[in-house]
């Protein structure tokens, strides 16, 4: 199948190809985020009761995101796309610092270090793809205002080990949750826009 049958006229990936790749990437990012959280939890969080404090303390909590299937299906696709963009943008900054700060954790295993760097890179890549998708789907100008700042860097550098480890635990816990949301929402959008809700 020739890639560009009519030469350079409109020679770009189809919306379906863009969504296929976005879903593959979001699946991969969430897989890595889950594994990183589990590895960190097993190695640094056992018996410290971090889960009790990690309830609803993500920097993206202020973004109103669909919590079940009905809500996800009621939201307009442009709003859901912009929401995904907003969550991805909100993770750019923390992922940059996570990738560098995680190197300072005592005996941090290579598998955690590698994943932190890989997730940061793939998050940027997914953001690039989402901007292309929004550009294709959006009627008006892409909304740039959905974004929540992150001010968690000082807590990743605290002297007290317990507090510092909790800060990492909480960040990884939120990354696992938000990357799962993004993966779910993208799969819903792909089924809606490409497969007419018949995946």
């Amino acid at each position, binding site marked *: 199948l020739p890639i560009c049958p009519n030469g350079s006229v409109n020679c770009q990936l189809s919306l379906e190809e863009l969504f296929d790749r976005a879903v593959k990437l979001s699946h991969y990012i969430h897989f890595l985020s889950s594994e990183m959280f589990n590895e960190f939890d097993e190695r640094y969080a056992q018996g410290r009761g971090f889960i009790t404090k990690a309830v609803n303390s993500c920097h993206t909590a202020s973004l109103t995101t669909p919590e079940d*299937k009905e809500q996800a299906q009621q939201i307009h696709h442009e709003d859901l796309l912009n929401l995904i963009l907003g969550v991805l943008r909100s993770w750019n900054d923390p992922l940059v610092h996570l990738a560098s700060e995680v190197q300072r954790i005592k005996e941090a295993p290579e598998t955690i270090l590698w994943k932190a760097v890989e997730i940061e890179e793939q998050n940027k890549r997914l953001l690039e793809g989402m901007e292309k998708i929004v550009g294709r789907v959006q009627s008006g100008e892409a909304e740039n205002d959905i974004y929540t700042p992150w001010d968690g860097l000082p807590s990743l550098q605290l002297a007290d080990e317990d507090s510092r480890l909790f800060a990492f635990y909480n960040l990884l816990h939120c990354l696992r949750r938000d990357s799962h*949301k993004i993966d779910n929402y993208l799969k*819903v959008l792909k089924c809606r826009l490409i497969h007419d809700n018949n995946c």
Partner: protein
Amino acid sequence: EEKINECPDYKTAGPNSCYFDKKHTSFWTIYNITVKATNEMGSNVSDPHYVDVTYIVQPDPPVNITLELKKSIKRKPYLVLTWSPPPLADVRSGWLTLEYELRLKPEEGEEWETISVGQQTQCKMFSLNPGKRYIVQIHCKPDHHGLWSEWSPEMYVEIPTD
């Protein structure tokens, strides 16, 4: 501040149980569940049990499983299996994505051979022993988190010898 809710339904799941339906559970929320026991002497509360329903979803087994024997160009028999997601699992909307694993073994054999087939709903099985009768089963799981379903009922297929 923490909102504490009493169990919405003590009956549906039988004695000493609490049943939370869809209205009482949402994804990506950590529920802190404790059980309080009271008698005339007073009461006591269990340690908290933390649950996010995202991680405990268990689907029903796949359905509509078909087995079809085919011959490759070089007359070698191979098996084509197809199946459908469990009806209650809404994969159509994309909210739930399932992955599948199948297992097979010669009827009198001991060891199952398990093959993961990702999100596909069909699979071709090669390298089957002519003249043998095989048992085949399939199960499924949400793509990231959750529990494997039960195995589907056993299905049998005999590989011809010619």
